């Protein structure tokens, strides 16, 4: 688990990364039926290649949340919406939210106050809890899905992940952060 405090805001974040997830379908069904026990942001790791990308979206979501300007129902859905570059909420939730057949999962929880932590992650996800690590994310990111989600110019679909050098990754990160921060502007 990665615990992050964003200095400007009173809330803090807890972030988990799971592999070999067995119950994605179940999580998704419970999430869609609006169960209180599933008040998390369940993110599809296929379109995430860096912690900075995740946190950049969290920053934007918390900024909008704390100024009463969120466009979705909760802070957790807002984080998923903020990961995208489009103003279409359904579109972003589909691309960045949990996939029914996914076997990897990133889970974020926004904690309003430290003492309010009242959940056990293992009761929700059945899988292997791993450290969230950029190398691991990069190894598994899906460029085709990334391209569909962010519409990079030039297109990512023609690049191979294996050929990506450090400079390519950092340029991709800069482009992604630009898109996240400037969505809707």
């Amino acid at each position, binding site marked *: 688990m990665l615990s*992050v*405090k*964003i*200095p*400007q*805001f009173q809330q803090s974040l807890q972030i988990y990364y799971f592999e070999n997830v067995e119950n994605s379908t179940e999580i998704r069904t419970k999430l869609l039926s609006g169960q209180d026990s599933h008040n998390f942001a369940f993110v599809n790791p296929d379109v995430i290649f860096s*912690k*900075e990308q995740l*946190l*950049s979206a*969290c*920053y*934007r979501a918390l*900024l909008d949340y704390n*100024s009463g*300007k969120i466009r979705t129902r909760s802070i957790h859905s807002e984080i998923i919406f903020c990961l995208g570059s489009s103003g279409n909420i359904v579109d972003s939730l589909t691309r960045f939210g949990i996939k029914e057949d996914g076997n990897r999962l990133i889970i974020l929880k926004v904690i309003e106050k430290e003492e309010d932590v009242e959940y056990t992650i293992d009761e929700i996800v059945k899988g292997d809890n791993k450290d969230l690590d950029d190398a691991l994310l990069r190894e598994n990111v899906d460029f085709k899905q990334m391209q569909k989600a962010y519409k990079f*110019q030039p297109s990512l679909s023609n690049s191979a992940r294996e050929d990506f050098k450090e400079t390519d990754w950092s*340029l991709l990160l*800069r*482009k992604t*952060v*630009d*898109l996240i*921060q*400037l969505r809707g*502007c």
Partner: protein
Amino acid sequence: MSDELIQLAQSHLQNIPLQVISQGAEAIVFTTKTHPYLPTSKDSHTEYIIKYRPPKKYRHPQLDATLTKHRTIAEARLLQRLTNIPEIQSPGLIALDARNGIIWMEKVGYELIDYDDKISSLKNWLWRYNDNQEKALTEEIKIALEKVGCMIGKAHVNDVIHGDLTSSNIIITEAQEACLIDFGLSYQSALPEDKGVDLYVLDRAILSTHPKYAEQYNEWLMAGYERGYGKDKKSLIKLKEVLKRYEEVRLRGRKRSMLG
């Protein structure tokens, strides 16, 4: 007056230590060692820039809010545009709070240890040698100025007009590369007129900030500028148009008409 603005900035940036580095009519610029959202280690020396456009009391509040938001977004957009032109070095955008007029970006440049630890803007970088003609006109400086010119040329090829090209708004990095900053007056335009005026502003800025060597400096900058257009035929035609217009602008001054 300034204290009041800093307090206002601080109210939007809670728990972020702020240090003022520059204040203009439009915005106030801070540095901080705290990243807005990445965990920072205590002994990290990386700094970040926060540009804050405070509300202007002389404007109608609603109009003020709209203007501030739009200008902040326009500047952030330009940073985004420059990310997509990798040949042009520019600070990366980190975070944007357009409603409050705040942009977070990377800090570029370093402190000149042989010049009172001042920031390595082209101005300070050149001024170090102002009293020493031999040092002021070395090959090192020639190469740097050509790089600066080349980068401006590349911006113009891509129809990016900086709008405020002074030697303070150009940074020389530790690797002796040129980097542009402050896009508060920047915009996109393909007109030779706008590019000509951009060059004229630079020419004047060099003349007033570095009068002793202005002629030589401007010559090097222009040599680099022409190189920035590359060898492509279409670009060379564009270059010719811009240079022609630049000569016209030089004769008449920055404003096209005599009115206002």
